[in-house]
């Protein structure tokens, strides 16, 4: 077990517009809000719909699938992180948003821009469950 958290605590853990998302991760679900006013499904979660600024939101589970848009290997990070590690920029398969996520790869050779990835959810550390990405295994 590593003693480092390997993440930074986001500033919106208690923001009304984001609480259902973080609670969803605790329950093993990757959720996105849908606007009750205009119907827009959007990501990342916000207090107000970016399309119409409505604030009545319901929550839907996404597929957890995505594509690698870009990646980097970090050798230099804050003390909260073990280095090196791979960070991927992931396009959600639903086409509605992008996340920067640690990607579980051992070598750079495993990573190819455009490849399919799965969004996984880590075991809670300090009460926070977090998303990360895993290269999809080819269907056999």
């Amino acid at each position, binding site marked *: 077990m590593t003693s480092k958290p390997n*993440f*930074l605590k986001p*500033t919106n853990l208690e923001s009304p517009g984001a609480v259902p998302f973080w609670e969803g991760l605790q329950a093993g679900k990757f959720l996105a809000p849908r606007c009750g006013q205009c119907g827009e499904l959007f990501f*990342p979660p916000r207090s107000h719909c970016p399309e119409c600024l409505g604030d009545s939101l319901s929550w839907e589970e996404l597929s957890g699938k995505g594509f690698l848009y*870009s990646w*980097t290997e*970090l050798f*230099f990070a804050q003390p909260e992180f073990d280095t090196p590690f791979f960070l991927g920029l992931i396009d959600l398969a639903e086409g509605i948003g992008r996340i*920067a996520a640690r990607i579980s790869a051992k070598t750079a050779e495993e990573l190819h*821009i455009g490849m399919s990835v799965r969004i996984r959810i880590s075991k809670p550390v300090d009460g926070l469950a977090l998303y990360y990405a895993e290269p999809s295994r080819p269907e056999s």
Partner: protein
Amino acid sequence: MSVNRKRAAIIGIGAVKVGRYPEKQESELALQVIRDALKDAQISSRQIDGLFTTPDLQGNIGLQTNLLCEYLRISPRSMAEICCGAIAGGLTLKYAADEIQAGRIKAAVCYGAVREGSIGWFKNLSQGKGWSMIEPTALQPYAAYGIIWAYALSARRYMHETGATEEDFALAAVRNRKNAAGNPVAAFAKPITVEDVLRSRCLSSPIKLLDSAASLDGAAAVIVVSEEAARDLSPHPVYLQGWGLHHDPSCVIPTDNCSTSISHFKATREAAKEAFQKAGIRPEDVDVAEIYAPFSSHELIIPEDIGWFQNGEMARALRRGETDITGRIPINTDGGLTSRGHPWAATPLYETVNIVRQLRGTAGPIQVRGAKVGLMHCEGGMMNNGLVMIFGRD
């Protein structure tokens, strides 16, 4: 209708050598460069009625103008401490020019002074400082150090789309270093080779130490007056011919959709388009340019966005020396962010100081022969916003 009626003009410049000034207050660095700029303009501090500056990053409440007004014994009729990321230094010029063109003020000081500000910003990142641009759900959890990782993701995507290599990026770092040797206010003068860059410590692949801007102390100031005043006061005024400003609907990395590019940037393109249109010139009319590239990868991306090259053409242009001092579009003749050094809030003003020197013909060993039209680009976030200014001798 003439677009150039009541232009603003720069008649004075001052800048300290980029480096480390642990013993000085930010206000002392500011006073030093303001004094030099006033002397260069041959005007007295009593003539200053506008004061525009960049954010104080040491955790204070943002009232450096307060101290400065007393230290300089001036009573501005217009003043602002402008934030908006690293573009702020450029915005001081824009708002000073606006106030001059509106007839509200006659002579403005625009300055930026940085002492360990950026270092504080990085140090405090995990405590939430500097996070206002980093989307909390989609980016913050793994925002592991400053925003190097964001530029690395951008650089990798650019490589994927254009076939550019780490060696191509290194060529830009080498060009900048060569230029910096001829700039008296640059931080780094020791020559480097492509091999040195490729072998330097990897920070966030593909970005290595010598691909990166050094966060250092510095201060620069510029005196802005009206066109009429400039003609009376200055033997070599430099006129603001046009500018363009744009903010894309994105934060440091666009997280709100899957279609916004991070290999090229719309804000830079829109700002450049507007600036060329307002100045009534085309990209190829520019004789000398300063661009705001915190990493060598973006020395390739930004010139393509401004319009001097098609996407992916910069690698070949670097190899052919087309952006060297003697090339068809000399870029970052003062060493750029990577070799002049990067006291970030003051950086756009350093860029402007070099453009003014170039257009006056006083840039010494880095002089571009016969330079008449200069371009200054700066940005905030990761090219989420952009400001492009066109300067001319007449």
